[in-house]
């Protein structure tokens, strides 16, 4: 037996320094998760709460999970009889509102040791896909084409109207709270007075197609996020669909001026990726993040005035949702494999 020569200690490989970030205070060229939180069932949604204490996920086993960002502790929250994709929080984050594919809204005391439903309302006939909170009002949109406005404290319905002739994919209060916005499966955006009067509507053609071979509509606004100053909204979805039923298409973000009712710019990945943009977030530091799932997972960072991204990151698996923390310093990505990963951006 010969003794192996001890190898000279390898020089630690100098990691290539991350490319300089064009956004001051943010390090977007490199991305490393600060937390990996694993649940047993595939995830469909994730949200940071406004206080930054928690991250809430929703999964294919009809449950919600509250994760403590401090110690990664998970608390299961059962109450829905279907999947949940819509979540909203009261201003301080005391109450979580979850809207399920069972058409039900549940209010949860978020900071309780074991949150139990404190109130629930049957809100829509069919899936609830989106909710928003502002000034004590809770807004929801569902597959019944309706937009509902209710008292957030009591969940009592105050107003509802048939807003779309197909599934409502997104609802939001305008950043100043003065208007209500909704968007649907066919990529149409509508702007409403709080009393349900239509102000304007406009299409986002890139985010919808009727697939003639499968005879089905494909598209819709899967996620949206307002510009920090309010007049623009970034809408995410799938475009260039050549086969709706195999999901052959590309992720796309469309920036629209909702006051003018027109499309301003399309943000596209430089390299073709097959999938859907499931999450978009407009950061107050002046960049837009998009997360996609399909043929794997991807994350991109754009400058809002440039069609192609500044940085692209391959994600370990299919992303299904993305959330940005209230301070803009972190994002969380919910994965099909059942994990939510938290990525710090500031640094």
């Amino acid at each position, binding site marked *: 037996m010969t003794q192996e020569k001890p190898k000279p200690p390898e020089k630690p490989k100098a990691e290539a320094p991350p490319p300089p970030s064009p956004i001051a205070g943010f390090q977007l060229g490199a991305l490393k998760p600060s937390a990996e939180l694993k649940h047993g*069932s*595939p995830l469909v949604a994730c949200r940071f709460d406004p206080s930054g204490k928690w991250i809430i996920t929703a999964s*294919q*086993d*009809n449950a919600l999970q509250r994760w403590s960002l401090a110690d990664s502790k998970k608390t299961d929250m059962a109450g829905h*009889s*279907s*999947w949940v994709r819509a979540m909203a929080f009261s201003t301080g984050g005391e109450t979580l509102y979850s809207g399920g*594919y*069972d058409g039900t809204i549940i209010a949860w005391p978020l900071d309780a040791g074991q949150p139990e439903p404190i109130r629930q309302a049957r809100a829509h006939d*069919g*899936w609830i896909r989106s909710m928003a909170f502002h000034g004590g009002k809770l807004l929801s949109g569902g*597959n019944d084409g309706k937009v509902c406005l209710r008292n957030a404290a009591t969940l009592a319905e105050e107003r509802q109207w048939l807003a779309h002739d197909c*599934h409502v994919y997104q609802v939001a209060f305008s950043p100043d709270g003065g208007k209500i916005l909704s968007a649907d499966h066919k990529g149409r955006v509508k702007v409403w007075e709080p009393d349900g009067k239509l102000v304007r509507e406009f299409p986002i053609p890139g985010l919808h197609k009727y697939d003639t*071979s*499968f*005879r*089905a*509509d*494909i598209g819709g606004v899967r996620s949206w996020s307002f510009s920090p100053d309010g007049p623009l909204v970034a809408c995410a979805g799938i475009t260039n669909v050549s086969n*709706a*039923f*195999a*999901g052959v298409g590309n992720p796309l973000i469309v920036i629209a001026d909702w006051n003018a009712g027109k499309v301003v710019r399309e943000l596209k990945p430089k390299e073709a990726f097959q*999938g*859907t943009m499931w999450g978009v977030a407009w950061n107050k530091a002046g960049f837009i993040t998009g997360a996609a*799932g*399909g043929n794997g997972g991807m994350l991109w960072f754009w400058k809002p005035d440039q069609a192609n991204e500044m940085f692209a990151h391959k994600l370990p*698996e*299919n992303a299904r949702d993305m959330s940005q923390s209230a301070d803009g310093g972190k994002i969380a990505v919910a994965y*099909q494999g059942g994990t939510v990963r938290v990525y710090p951006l500031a640094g």
Partner: protein
Amino acid sequence: MGVVRLCGSPEHAMSRRAVLGALGAGAFTGGALANPLAMQNKRVLMIFLAGGVSQLETWDPKPGAPTGGPFRAIPTSVPGTHVCELLPCTAGQIHRLALVRGINTAEDDHGKGSYIMHTGRRQEPSVNYPHLGSLVAKMVAAPENPLPGYLHVEPGGSGGSSSADAAFLGPKFGSVSISDGKPPANIDLPGTLTSGRDDMRHAMRRKADSRFLASRNTAETEAYTQTHEQARQMIAKKKLFDTANEPGKLGDSYGRHDFGRHCLLARRLLEGGAPFVKVTHTNYDTHHENFDFHIERMGEFDRTFATLIEDLHQRGMLSSTLVLVVSEFGRTPNINRNYGRDHWSKAWSIALGGQGVVGGAVVGKTNATGTAVVDRQVNAGHLFATYFRALGLDPAKKHYIDQRPIPMTDPAGSAIGEILA
């Protein structure tokens, strides 16, 4: 270089021409040719959910299971039987339908699965089998039936006839495509031709034929003169295609979309004397966004289908119409990364009802996650034997081609007695 195996091709062994030659020579024998059912007005409506409908989103929901997806199960008109919440209207008709939940066809290819569900057989190198529609056209239709025996209402489609579907039964029993619910090409008499004049010119044609054929009638001349009569009857029946004639409320109930119009047309065609109508609803091949697309598809299917069953019942036609809701296979219990479900033939379901079927029956069971059949597994051979029994036909009866006996249905599959009236 890849070798093309002719053995795998449908044209193998029994060419159309050889078979027709055999027919002409009288080699096709046996009582199967007789149409004992012709006078009883039995008929078949086959709804084909193309692409592979999900059994979990229809007849065999698994709410709460990891494979269950987001939909809940709802009670039906039969206590204890639940279906997916995407079928709220159909749930009210379950007492008129039987569910077969233990199907294993062991074929995940679209073309081959479709062949199995249309013929009751796996593809074989030695013989090409006829579609159920062709069998019904041959065995159930009255010879004087005014409409082609096998009509196929489909989105898109050729608008022509397909003799290949009839295999050895002969081209007369092939399918005639009713493309997008529109009548066959050239159905309208030329503008200048009144129907009175058309009657007259046909009377002259018939007189010429009777003179000529008095001394020379053959099967071929008969087939030729017969198509003229069929065409005339089709022209006379063209109003059947005008679904706009239906009362507004019923039309609304069927739905103002393609599938609604096509099912309404199917009912009109059946009422007008068609022995077999297939309606295709497309498409269910949801490898991506299975749940969203099933909401859309079932949103069309559910109300239309429930209306159709109710309408057939109200008209007294349901008890003599065998209704089948089939697909080429089911979909994977496993939900893939794109919210899709893929092809799954090992454990899936169909629904049937009407003529000869016990309403409210459920046969077969899958395991908790829906991945395997755990009770009363059946394949397409069983299904075809069941269809035959429901129609009062003997599944074991044989066709003879070149002295070779061919059982009408796969002898390996017996009828599912539990759902037969």
